[in-house]
C-alpha cells in the first residue's frame, strides 16, 4: 500500500513537472530556443503571486488573474527586446544570454525578497484531501494535475486548431518562407514566449502554494522541466505530461526507499531513458 501511495502521489507531482516543462517544450518547438532562465522565471512568477496575495489580500488562485497576463506581457517584451536578437544558426548566443538572464533574475529576486524561504497561503486548500479507500488524495495535488492536463490540452488545441497555432507551426517549419507568406516572425516568436510564460505563471503560483521557495531554486525547476521534456520526447506535449509523471513517480518511489534518494532517483530515471531511448519515449521531432 505504501508503494501504491507513492505511485499515486508521484503521478500527481508529475502534473506540476509537466507544467514546468510545457513552456520549455513550447518555445523549443516554435523557435528551437532553450531558455536556461526558465526555472528562474517560474520562481519569479511565484514571487509575483506572493506579492499579489499579500498586497491585495486575495487567494493565490485569484492572483493568477494578475500574474498570468503580467508574465505573458513580460515574455513578449523579453522576446522582442532581447531574445529575438540571439536567434540564428549559432547556439551560443541564446544559451549565454538566457544564462546571464538567469543570474540577473536570481539576484534581483534576492535583492527584492531576501534569501528567506517564502510560501503562499492558500488556506484550507492546502490540507484538504479526499479519501480513496486506504489512500488519501490531496485536493491541491489533484487540482494541480487537473490544471496540467487542461493546460496541455489547451496548448495542443491552440497548436493544431487555431490561426495562432498555424503561425507557430509555420515559423517552426521554415522561418523564411513563413515570413514571405506574410507572417511577422518576430511577432510570432513574441507571442510564443508570451504563451510559454503564461503557462510558467500558472506553474509558479502552484509551486508557491505547494512548497516554500527561495530565489535559488530556479535551476532545480529548470532541470525537472527539462527531464520531463526529454523523457517524453521532443515536440510531443502529451509525451511531456507522461515524462513529468515518470519523473514524479521515480522521485516518490526513491523517497519511499530512502528520503535522501528522492532527487537522485529522478535523475537516474532520466539517465536510464537517455541511455535506452535517447530520443525519449514518444518523440515527434528530432532535436
Amino acid at each position, binding site marked *: 500500500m505504501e508503494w501504491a501511495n507513492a505511485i499515486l502521489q508521484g503521478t500527481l507531482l508529475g502534473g506540476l513537472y509537466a507544467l514546468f516543462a510545457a513552456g520549455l517544450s513550447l518555445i523549443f518547438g516554435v523557435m528551437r530556443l*532553450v531558455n536556461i532562465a526558465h526555472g528562474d522565471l517560474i520562481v519569479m512568477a511565484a514571487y509575483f503571486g506572493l506579492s499579489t496575495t499579500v498586497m491585495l489580500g486575495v487567494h493565490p488562485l485569484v492572483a493568477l488573474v494578475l500574474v498570468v497576463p503580467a508574465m505573458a506581457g513580460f515574455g513578449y517584451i523579453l522576446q522582442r527586446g532581447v531574445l529575438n536578437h540571439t536567434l540564428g544558426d549559432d547556439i*551560443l548566443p541564446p544559451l549565454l544570454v538566457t544564462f546571464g538572464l538567469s543570474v540577473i533574475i536570481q*539576484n534581483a529576486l*534576492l535583492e527584492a525578497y531576501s534569501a528567506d524561504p517564502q510560501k503562499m497561503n492558500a488556506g484550507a486548500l492546502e490540507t484538504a484531501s479526499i479519501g480513496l479507500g486506504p489512500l488519501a488524495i490531496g485536493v491541491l495535488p489533484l487540482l494541480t494535475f487537473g490544471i496540467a492536463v487542461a493546460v496541455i490540452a489547451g496548448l495542443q488545441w491552440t497548436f493544431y486548431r487555431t490561426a495562432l497555432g498555424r503561425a507557430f507551426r509555420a515559423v517552426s517549419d521554415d522561418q523564411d518562407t513563413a515570413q514571405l507568406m506574410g507572417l511577422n516572425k518576430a511577432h510570432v516568436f513574441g507571442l510564443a514566449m508570451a504563451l510559454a510564460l503564461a503557462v510558467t505563471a500558472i506553474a509558479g503560483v502552484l509551486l508557491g502554494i505547494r512548497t516554500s521557495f527561495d530565489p535559488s531554486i530556479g535551476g532545480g525547476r*529548470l532541470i525537472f522541466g527539462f527531464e520531463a521534456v526529454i523523457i517524453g520526447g521532443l515536440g510531443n506535449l502529451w509525451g511531456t505530461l507522461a515524462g513529468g509523471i515518470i519523473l514524479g513517480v521515480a522521485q516518490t518511489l526513491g523517497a519511499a526507499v530512502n528520503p*535522501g534518494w528522492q532527487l*537522485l532517483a529522478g*535523475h537516474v530515471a532520466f*539517465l536510464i531513458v537517455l541511455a535506452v531511448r535517447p530520443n525519449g519515449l514518444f518523440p515527434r521531432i528530432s*532535436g
Partner: protein
Amino acid sequence: MTGTSVTRTSRAARVAAILGAVVVVILIAAPWWAGRADMRLMGEIFLYLSLACLWNLLAGYAGLVSVGQQAYVGFGGYMLFALTMFAGLPPVAAIAIAGVLGALISVPVAALIFRLRGAYFAIGTWVIAEVFRLAFAQASALGGGSGTSLPTSIVRSLADGRSARESLSYWLALGMGLAVIAAVFLLLRSRRGLALTAIRDNELAAGSLGIDIWRTKFVVYVIVSALTAMVGALIFLQKLRISPDAAFSVNDWTAFVIFIVVIGGIGTIEGPIIGTLIFFALRETLADLGTIYLMVLGFVAIIVMLKAPKGVWGLIRDRFDVQFFPLGYRVLRDPKKGP
C-alpha cells in the same frame, strides 16, 4: 612575381612571448615580493584562469557548451579529500590521480550526454553535476551534506611551516594555470587542433572532409574533464574545507567562468586571459555591492554577447590585427626572393 613565404609567428607574437616569459619569472618569484593576501588572490586568479581556458576549449572550439563543469571541479575536490584521508596519499600525488579519475569518469558521462544536441547538451551536463552533488551528499565518510575539513596532519604534510605551505600552494596554482594554457595552445597547434578549428567554423564542412567529429569532441571532453578535476583538487586544497553545495556550485565554477570567457572573447586563447583580469578587477572594486555586482556582471555578459560577440579581445584583434599566441598561418611577401 613577388616571392612569398608562409610563417606562423609574427613580431607581435615574438614580443608577447618575451614579455610573457618575463611576467612568468616575476610571478614565480612572488613569494619573495608579494604579501600573503596578494598571493592568495593571485592563486585564485590562476585557478579561475585555468577553468576559463578549459571551458573556452570546450565551448569555444569544440562547440560543447557545458553549464555543468562544476561536476568535475567538485569531483576533483572530493577526490583530493578521499585520496589523502583514506588512501594516505600525499596531496600533490592526489591532485594528479584526481585528474586521472576525472578522465575515467568522464568517459561514461560523455557516452550518455553526447546523445543530447546543442542546448539540451548544456542542461544535460547540469543534470550530471546535480547527480554528482547528490551522490557525494550521500557519502557519510566525507561528511555527507554538511561536508568535511582536511585534517591538519595532511595539511602539515604539504610542507614545513606556514609560509612554505602557502608558497607551494601558490606555485601549484601558477603551474596549473601555465600548464593549462600550454596544453590548450599545443592541442590547438596539433593536427587535432586543426580539426577542432574546422569543426568550430563549420561542422558540416568539417565532417564532409573526413574529420571524425564525435571522436574529436570526445577527446577534448575527456582532456578538459581531467584538467578541470585537477583544478578542482587545487581549489579545495586552498580552501581546506569541502561541502557538496560549495563543491558543485553552478555560480562559482560555471557562471563566473562563462562570464569571464564571454567578456574576454570566446574561441580565442587570449580571450580567457583578458576576461580573467577584467573579472577580478571588477570583483575587487565592486564586490561590496553583493547581489548588484552579480546583476551587473550578467548585464555586461548579455550586452557583450549581443553587441560584440567576439568579446574584448575580438575588438582589439579587429582593430590592430594582432595575435599573441600564434595559431594561424600568415603569408608574407618576401623581398629577398622577389624580382
